[in-house]
């Protein structure tokens, strides 16, 4: 596999993504110098914010790995041949423990989230009008300081919610890592990409 451009998320999914690709013979030894674009064995690796990976792939990077949460939030037009067996978590609605209410009573609530599109879609579908505040990180703090009534965020073990006196009341979607392919790369590198997908499927 040569001359491929690959976008991977910095953070919790990076090591597993590298290991996963390595098992399909795409060995990317990442330099420790924090370079965000690295040339490795004639491949170009782009390390980006997780939420930007689908955008990079949509705009011309050949392949990438990111969570289904960020893909659905960005609504990027990419191919998604495989759902992967890591990065499993869920996107959920949570409220302060002392104010636990049913989701149907959220009318007029302000919700802090990194996922304003998914949040709006979820409540619109239920016919509930809410305001969203977009935050980038530490969303769980918002109800404690009084700028939001609830949050929509990723829940893995529930420990972060508990530490911030929040309780999960409804799941919006299950999340897992996805293998993504640029729509044009799939066409112009058809054989190479299909071969890679076949190998990754066996991992």
């Amino acid at each position, binding site marked *: 596999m040569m001359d491929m451009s690959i976008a991977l998320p910095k953070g919790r999914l990076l090591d597993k993504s590298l290991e996963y690709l390595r098992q399909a013979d795409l060995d990317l030894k990442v330099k420790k110098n924090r370079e965000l674009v690295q040339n490795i064995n004639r491949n170009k690796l782009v390390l980006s914010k997780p939420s930007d990976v689908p955008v990079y792939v*949509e*705009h*011309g990077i050949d392949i990438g790995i990111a969570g289904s949460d960020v893909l659905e939030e960005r609504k990027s*037009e*990419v*191919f*998604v*041949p*495989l*759902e992967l067996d890591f990065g499993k978590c869920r996107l959920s609605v949570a409220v302060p423990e002392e104010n636990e209410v049913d989701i149907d009573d959220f009318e007029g609530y302000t919700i802090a989230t990194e996922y304003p599109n998914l949040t709006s879609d979820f409540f619109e579908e239920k016919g509930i009008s809410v305001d969203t505040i977009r935050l980038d990180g530490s969303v769980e703090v918002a109800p404690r300081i009084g700028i939001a009534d609830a949050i929509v965020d990723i829940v893995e073990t529930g420990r972060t919610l508990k530490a911030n006196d929040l309780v999960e009341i409804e799941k919006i979607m299950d999340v897992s890592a996805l293998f993504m*392919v*640029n*729509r*044009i790369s*799939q*066409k*112009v590198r*058809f054989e190479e990409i*299909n071969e890679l*997908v076949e190998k990754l*499927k066996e991992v």
Partner: protein
Amino acid sequence: MKKDVFSESERLDIIVSEIREILKRWGYQEIFLPSVVEHDGKLRKGLNITCQNEFYSVNPDPTSQMAVNFRDGLPIRKFYIREILDGIEGKFQAGIEFLCDDPVRNKVEILNILISILERLKIEDFYVDIGSLKIWKETIENIKEYRDDIFTALRRRNLSLIDDLPISSEKKEELWDLLNLRGEKCGFDKIDRLIDLVDDDRFYADLGTVRPLPYYDDIIFEIYSPRAGFPIGAGGEYKLEGTHGCGFALDLEMISEIYNIEEENDFVVVDGDLKTSYRRARGLVEDGEKVRMEI
């Protein structure tokens, strides 16, 4: 990044002029569709608004707008160049539609015009992948209760979604094989024959080309270039009150990204005092010259 409207317009002006000229040579007429129309369930895209308790669509998809206004009188050869809205997002497109009684002829003509336009724009490294919605519909006929899931999987080439379907492993394999059926020929006569009739080695049969839009009913195609991260256009065939139609739309912003502008040197530069220079310029224009007034 906010685009520079003036420099972007300079590029689009050149591109659109070339497209218009080619389409005129092919005998196509430009259609001028109103921007604001009464809302109709058959209209696609557009920005939906209310005004004085009435519902309207602003700049909807022109093919659907033409369908709403369709009257008899074949053949119809029309083209449009306009911004299409999808909510508040806008996209400049050039599109053509050809309606006639011969469903093979209209596809062959439309695809030949596509080649004319792209070659005129000196975009020669383009490819066209041709697929068929009917082949897919026939393939899933006996499992059509999963139609929506299957088309979601097809649109995203999602092997995992196909794997999760409660259907036999043979059927899953058949779906995956069909999705990966791509080449100069595919074994399906209607696609192979079309590629043969167009006779251009940049055209491929590709059953992985799946765009289940409401009005396309069989052959669909996607136009792309390795220099662009997105498709540069797409099209397909449809039926309008029993009449066969075929058309495509080019994404002018994507075309602009890969189009190389050549400096125009064929202007006659005119200078002198206002009265005589403009009189001379007028004469040159009448004689078919291009003029550029010296300031």
